[in-house]
């Protein structure tokens, strides 16, 4: 017989999202809480991100990943927040029952008043790309290679091509180079990079690593270990152009082709998932479609900067605390919420719903669907412009954030808030 433990708040994941959410909830007075983490230490993926550049927004300092995580871990310890590591959550039910397992505590069942989902994301593997060729050793997702190098102390290979220009791939191009490997190329199927501009400059340009835009890997060779790949240019429909093949002799191919929020547990709990973000559909409190279940960080939508993850997760933690105190969700009547819609040139705006009379300012987070230069992001409420932000460039590689002030929202009625891009679009 498995006993059931009652608890106010269960946080799943002790990466930056889970830590921030737990800290905020504890600061709001929630003392019956527990953070569950599957790895042996808290910190999440930051543990293997030993490069710097973290914390510029939040701390006005350039920290490494472990340094950034250490600050939240220290704060969590200070607040005496229990974090149980080496513990994997197996299921979450719609009525907030959670089962988990660990070598130390065995199989356990919790019943929580609120749950914060903070499981992060995973990398898109080769299978998702359907790249033809052999299935030899030497093909890794960039994050797996990062773990081998930074946590285990091993080099996965010596002559490297990187497919995809996501941030982890760019960071690994520099990391492998610094460790003595030859990085031959970074290959991106889109006409623009999906990584941050600063990473293109600091990780590719500074080391003379060529970036092939509108190119992809069309063949993988090697029986045992990778021996080489073929890269082809693609047309505007992303189909390879015959005759454009370039062959590379390499022993390693790193894939940095996108991140997917890891929502298997959320789906088990019946949480509605957006096909655009692959994360939960949430309101401005980060509460999902299932009452009392909140989501934040990369499990909700993939961020570029951990600072934004923490910021979002503090809000989710506070909202979960408010939910536990009042034991009720915000109003569910559709007349009392705005539906948030993606307009032209915009993809995956979060949150998808905003309560009328929210308790604080609301950040609208989204990605433009292409590169826009000298353009504006425009927010409309039932067709009336309420906010406009101009920028020299909006790119899919950088999440845009528009803050709707509470004071402004309090003056509005209507039923729909739409975000769209306006002005000079270009794909290059």
């Amino acid at each position: 017989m498995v006993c059931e433990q009652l608890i106010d708040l269960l946080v799943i994941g002790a990466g930056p999202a889970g830590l921030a959410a737990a800290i905020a909830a504890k600061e709001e007075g929630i003392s019956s809480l527990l953070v569950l983490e599957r790895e042996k230490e808290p910190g999440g993926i930051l543990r293997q991100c030993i490069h710097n550049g973290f914390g510029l927004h939040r701390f006005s300092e350039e920290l490494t990943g472990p340094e950034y995580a250490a600050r939240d871990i220290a704060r969590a310890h200070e607040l005496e927040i229990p974090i149980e590591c080496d513990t994997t959550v197996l299921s979450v039910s719609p009525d907030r029952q959670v089962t988990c397992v660990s070598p130390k505590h065995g199989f356990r069942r919790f019943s929580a008043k609120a749950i914060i989902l903070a499981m992060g994301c995973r990398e898109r593997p080769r299978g998702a790309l359907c790249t033809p060729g052999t299935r030899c050793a030497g093909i890794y997702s960039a994050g797996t290679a990062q773990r081998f190098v930074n946590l285990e102390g091993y080099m996965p290979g010596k002559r490297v091509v990187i497919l995809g220009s996501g941030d982890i791939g760019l960071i690994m191009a520099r990391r492998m180079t610094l460790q003595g490997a030859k990085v031959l190329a970074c290959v991106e199927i889109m006409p623009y990079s999906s990584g941050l501009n600063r990473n293109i400059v600091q990780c590719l340009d500074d080391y003379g690593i060529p970036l092939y835009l509108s190119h992809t890997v069309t063949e993988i060779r090697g029986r045992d270990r990778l021996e080489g790949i073929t890269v082809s240019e693609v047309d505007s429909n992303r189909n390879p152009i015959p005759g454009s093949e370039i062959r590379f002799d390499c022993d390693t191919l790193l894939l940095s082709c996108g991140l997917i929020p890891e929502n298997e547990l959320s789906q088990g709990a019946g949480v509605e998932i957006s096909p655009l973000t692959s994360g939960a559909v949430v309101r401005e409190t980060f509460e999902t479609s299932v009452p009392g279940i909140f989501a934040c960080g990369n499990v909700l939508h993939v961020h570029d900067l951990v600072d934004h993850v923490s910021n979002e997760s503090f809000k989710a933690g506070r909202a979960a605390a408010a939910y536990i105190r009042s034991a009720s969700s915000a109003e569910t009547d559709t007349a009392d919420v705005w539906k948030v819609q993606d307009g032209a040139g915009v993809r995956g705006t979060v949150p998808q719903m905003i309560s009328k009379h929210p308790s604080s300012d609301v950040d609208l987070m989204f990605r433009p669907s292409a590169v826009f230069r000298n353009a504006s992001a425009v927010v409309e409420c039932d067709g009336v412009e309420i906010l406009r932000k101009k920028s020299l460039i909006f790119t899919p590689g950088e999440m845009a954030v528009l803050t709707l002030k509470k004071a402004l929202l309090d003056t509005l009625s209507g039923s729909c808030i739409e975000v769209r891009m306006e002005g000079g679009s270009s794909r290059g």
Partner: protein
Amino acid sequence: MIQLDILVIGAGITGTALSRELSRLNATVAVIDRACDVAEGATKANSGIVHAGYDALPGTQKAMYNVRGAQMYPGLCESLGVSYRKCGALVIGFDEADCAALRDLLDRGIQNGVRDLRLLSQKEALALEPSLNPEVLCALSVPESAIVSPYEMAFALADDAAVNGVSFSFDQDVTGISRLEDGTWQVTTSKDVFICKVLVNCAGSSGADLHNMISDQKLHMVHRRGQYYLLDRAAELPFSRTVFQCPSRMGKGVLVSPTVHGNLLLGPTAEDIPDPLDTATTSDGLSEILKKASRTWPALSVRTNITNFSGVRAHLDTDDFIVGPVPFAPGAFEAIGIESPGLSSAPAIAQDLSAMIASYLSLERKSSLRPFPKHPKPFHEMSDEERTVAVSTDPEYGRIVCRCEVVTEAEIRQAIRRPVGARTIDGIKRRTRAGMGRCQGGFCSPRVAQILSEETGTPLLRITKDGGHSYLLADTIGSFLKGGHR
């Protein structure tokens, strides 16, 4: 030099099924394979269908062994603890010519002794499988068709054989075979020399090459590659049965089928290639699957694809299995050309070969057998109560290594400690499913490599993905910088 009674060359489904039969006899038996593990050839890369037996021409070896073998599967899987599901199959047709072909298949099936075959109207077919192309005109219902994991089957057969005294040895590439004056056979490999009274050629795609080393009646084999898509088990299955299109001269065509693990399989292609070890996928092959499978399943989506793979069929020009003694080579036996329905036929082929060998060597059956250590239920399939017990007995059941397929550290260690244990990352994957899921080992492979290294005492740098030189890692970062900075 290793002396024994019987040497089986090839540890695929035929060789492992035979080894289990031979382990029941009073004889010394070894199984060798060129690859690093059991099931490394066509056995690891086929459709996983236990065919009912309607397809092969009546009177052929294929027809006889298929029907007999398929009937052995439920009992064999039960005693070995291998999942097997009689999900049934539909063969669908789109025009009058197809319907005539289906009527022929029905007749053939009845002659071959297949039970419960029935022709269905369009309406009946669509009622059974609503995701089918509504343009389907007719279908043959095959309730006896089943699915199984072919490599799990081979692992279990090998384990049972090993527990009962058969030895397995890998990375053994046969370089020479000769018959000695005393009538025994000498088999030279890349590693050893074996002297045996009986040798059995179960060498899959190398079957004809080995045969031609010992026989003047030369055989010619065509290497026919089949490529596949494998979709995530999280995706809702569009079909509960295996759906075939009308078979052609090149094979049974492109199928869409659930697997025993709840994934969806699309494929295979049929392309003749020169190199039997060339298991690459190609863009042409993959697009052909999509084109053909979408005729069965118009709403086809490979958005949830987790991997593509291919296997190579061992097709003989004569288009039938050869099972039995090698003519004019006393003491040599063979099972060659074991392409589809080879998986279905293997238990029956093994039974017959074993009887022939027993009679040739006048072998007695062992008086007692060691019971097969049935593999524990996977953690993923356990109830909460079973999980509670499992973790309290072995705390390593409490550590999930593969999050996508929910595989625990305890199960990974068990896979290495099995009688014929895993020695590679892929060996662990196929025995436990760790790395088989949607992240394709992205998170778990470093940990799996670590456990393999601990359990086998192999340095991490020598751990391979799938044998040979498929090393996972190139160097430690320290020594690489010192020695490798050019």
